[in-house]
């Protein structure tokens, strides 16, 4: 097990290098000069722009810039933003905790509600309550999240007045509730459906019949024997989903004015703040890598048959 984890951790290195290089090269290839754009339609002094670029190291060839970036990164330096002159690390430190909070909240919502809905429906497949769930989840899947976001805002903030329409700069848990539900609702639908199918299928498995025949209480049959085996596809989905929640929150963050990663990366892209984009994307890549490792480890817990040596 330890060797497996070590091997997986080592594998992260090339993935990490490759993804940063890729994002770096893409930012480099984008047209438009961020330093020049600071002046807008006003007078431009080419000498001054050249000097600023030299200070920031933006006049170097791509490989050299990437090398500088990497060496900086290993010394814990994420680089400096072009316009504001602030360290990129500050921007990340401002935005990440909020998005992590939002994503975890959404994730928790997805897991708890999604799995219980799935189990609830799966235990009585092809009944009315199962059909109801299928229709509800189909709705959630087909309605784009911005529609859901605006609807939620309209009803809960403006009509009922239960919550504020926007998340303030502090981003309290109570404010994050609505955006988290909206953000999590798409995954919720998938989780519910996956669980339902898995549960419905496994109900007919041999080991279930055995468990029931042994006279085990129903709670134990469902809670341990059924759930453990039914969770494997769900866990796989959830693993990749956490990363998607972190990175894909752009739309939801925009609607509810959450000052998180999605907005930070979008703004940085618009202003061609290459270092910021690469920094944030790198962190999201790491989150993906870590969660996929966790998923693989969880397999071993759930089903000893797929345990690694």
């Amino acid at each position, binding site marked *: 097990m330890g060797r497996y984890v070590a091997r997986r951790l080592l594998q992260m290195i090339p993935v990490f290098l490759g993804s940063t290089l890729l994002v770096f090269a893409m930012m480099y290839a984008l047209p438009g000069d961020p330093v*020049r*754009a600071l002046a807008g339609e006003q007078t431009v002094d080419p*000498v001054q722009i050249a000097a600023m670029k030299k*200070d920031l190291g933006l006049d170097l060839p791509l490989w050299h810039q990437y090398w500088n970036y990497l060496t900086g990164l290993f010394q814990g330096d994420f680089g400096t933003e072009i316009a504001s002159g602030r360290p990129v690390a500050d921007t990340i430190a401002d935005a990440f905790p909020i998005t992590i909070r939002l994503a975890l909240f959404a994730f928790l919502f997805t897991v708890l509600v999604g799995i219980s809905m799935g189990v609830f429906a799966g235990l009585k497949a092809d009944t009315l309550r199962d059909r109801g769930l299928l229709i509800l989840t189909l709705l959630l899947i087909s309605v784009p999240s911005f529609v859901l976001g605006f609807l939620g805002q309209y009803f809960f903030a403006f009509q009922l007045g239960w919550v504020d*329409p926007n998340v303030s700069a502090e981003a309290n848990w109570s404010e994050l509730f609505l955006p988290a539900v909206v953000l999590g609702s798409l995954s919720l639908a998938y989780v519910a459906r996956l669980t339902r199918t898995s549960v419905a299928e496994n109900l007919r498995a041999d080991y279930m019949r055995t468990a029931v025949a042994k006279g085990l209480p129903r709670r134990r049959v469902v809670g341990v024997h059924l759930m453990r085996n039914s969770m494997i596809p769900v866990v796989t989905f959830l693993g990749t989903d956490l990363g998607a929640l972190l990175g894909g929150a752009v739309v939801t963050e925009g609607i509810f004015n959450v000052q998180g990663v999605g907005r930070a990366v979008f703004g940085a892209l618009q202003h061609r703040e290459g270092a910021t984009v690469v920094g944030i994307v790198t962190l999201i890549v790491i989150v993906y890598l870590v969660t996929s490792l966790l998923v693989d*480890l969880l397999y*071993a817990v759930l089903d000893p048959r797929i345990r690694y040596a």
Partner: protein
Amino acid sequence: MRGAKSAKWVAGAAIIALAATACGGGSDDSDSASKEKGKPEGYVSVDVGEPQKPLIPADTNESLGSYVIQALFTQLLEFDGEGKIVYTNAESVKSEDNKTWTVKLKPGWKFHDGTPVTAASYIKAWNWYANVKNAQQNSFWFEDIKGYADVHPEKGDPKATEMSGLKAVDDTTFTIELDKPVPYFEYKLGYYTFAPLPEVFYKDTKAFGQAPVGNGPYVFEKWDHKKLIQVKANPDYQGPNKAKNKGLLFKNYATVEAAYQDLLSGNLDMIRQIGPKDLPKYKTDLGDRVVDQPYAAVQSIVPTFYSKTFKGIDPKVLQGLSMGIDRATITKTVLNGTREPATSFTPPGVAGNQHLDTDVFKFDPAKAKQLIKEGGGVPDNKLWIQYNADGGHKEWVTAVCESIRNSTGVDCIPDAKPDFQTDLEARDNNQVKSMYRGGWVADYPLNVNFMRELYGTTAEANNGRFSDKDVDAAFKKGDNAASLDESIKAYQEAEKLVLQKMPAIPLWNYKINGGYSKSVDNVAIDYRGDYVMTDVTVK
């Protein structure tokens, strides 16, 4: 089960670690009187987002940063609602020959750290701003001053650190000598770039940019990056624009829609621009709390005179194209009444704006066709209008093209660049296919600002590369005029000449379509379209 156990442990530890980073934050300001979270009593909030750059007066040229700069710093003079000069830190600015200007400061002014504002505070700051080594965005504003070329040469290192044209007479008097007479130089001094700096600035310019010490109506309190900037009223301020509220909150919003929702729910006092989604209903939402006023800015489409389409074009063709655009309908429908059709090259609200006796700005398809024909037509009967797709221009560019196509038969194609950066790059490198979308907001409320900066042969904002000896000569005449009034008049004459040459097709003047909440009053805008924040009162 050993393996399983250790795996459980790994997973558990990781989840705990994630949860730990997620916590923290969520503090409550329970004793604030306003419904708005975190707002101290008597403060006014406005949706002014994160400034692009550190807060140094000469390094800020976008509207978000300039809001904050203007709250914290006061330069020699300001302009009132009519664009007339109001002295703020200066007692007087005088010149006999338009070349040497004598500035007298009001005595007793202090920076927020208690140090006095003297002639030296201005001179030292201007020299620092102008120095090429300090790479200030607005350094070109000092180019009229004698000795600018020494501190800001076109190549290489500066030869001096001080401009020879700036001399202190005593603590509150200094003289500015210019390279050549500039009759309207005093107007330029109203730009916030000319603000003074305290001594503490030179000790650590970087730290100063994050927490500036100014001499203005407000004192810096905090900058919570990408969230808000908070400033409090300066009780010792002596200028005419003393704050009538206790402080300001500049709040950052993801979208104008989000800001508007906060305005409606009482979490924001003022909004600078209503988004297209809410424009049709904002008047019913806000009633008499709507701000719907024009300001000194012009939107035009600018032909590039190096392009295949417009190289050596007869101005008649451009006049024809101008007449082929139905400005009235487009501003009313596509732009939801957020613009006013242009009737000249200068917007109303600047001194020297005049009624041009012409029908070039009128919609007249028959005459348009005729003029284009007389001028020899558009090569290939086809033109492009370049715009940046990230700025909400797509709709009107498409409408303008449609209008030109329908009324003149000239094929017009919108040429989208993904964002402003790419758009600027094409303009700088002379790669615009035939026309680009131009926009200009007044730096100072004079017609001069809309002429020489845009259409002079050597003007750097002249991205259409328009060049005409007669026009240059007319501008020069205005620059050499003996007085401000004569200069304005000369530029009015120059505008008539510009109309004959058509370096651009003005489309419309901007309006501000904003609004404010029930808790504030006395909301007005200045010539630049910015709220006069010092005047806003809290109910």
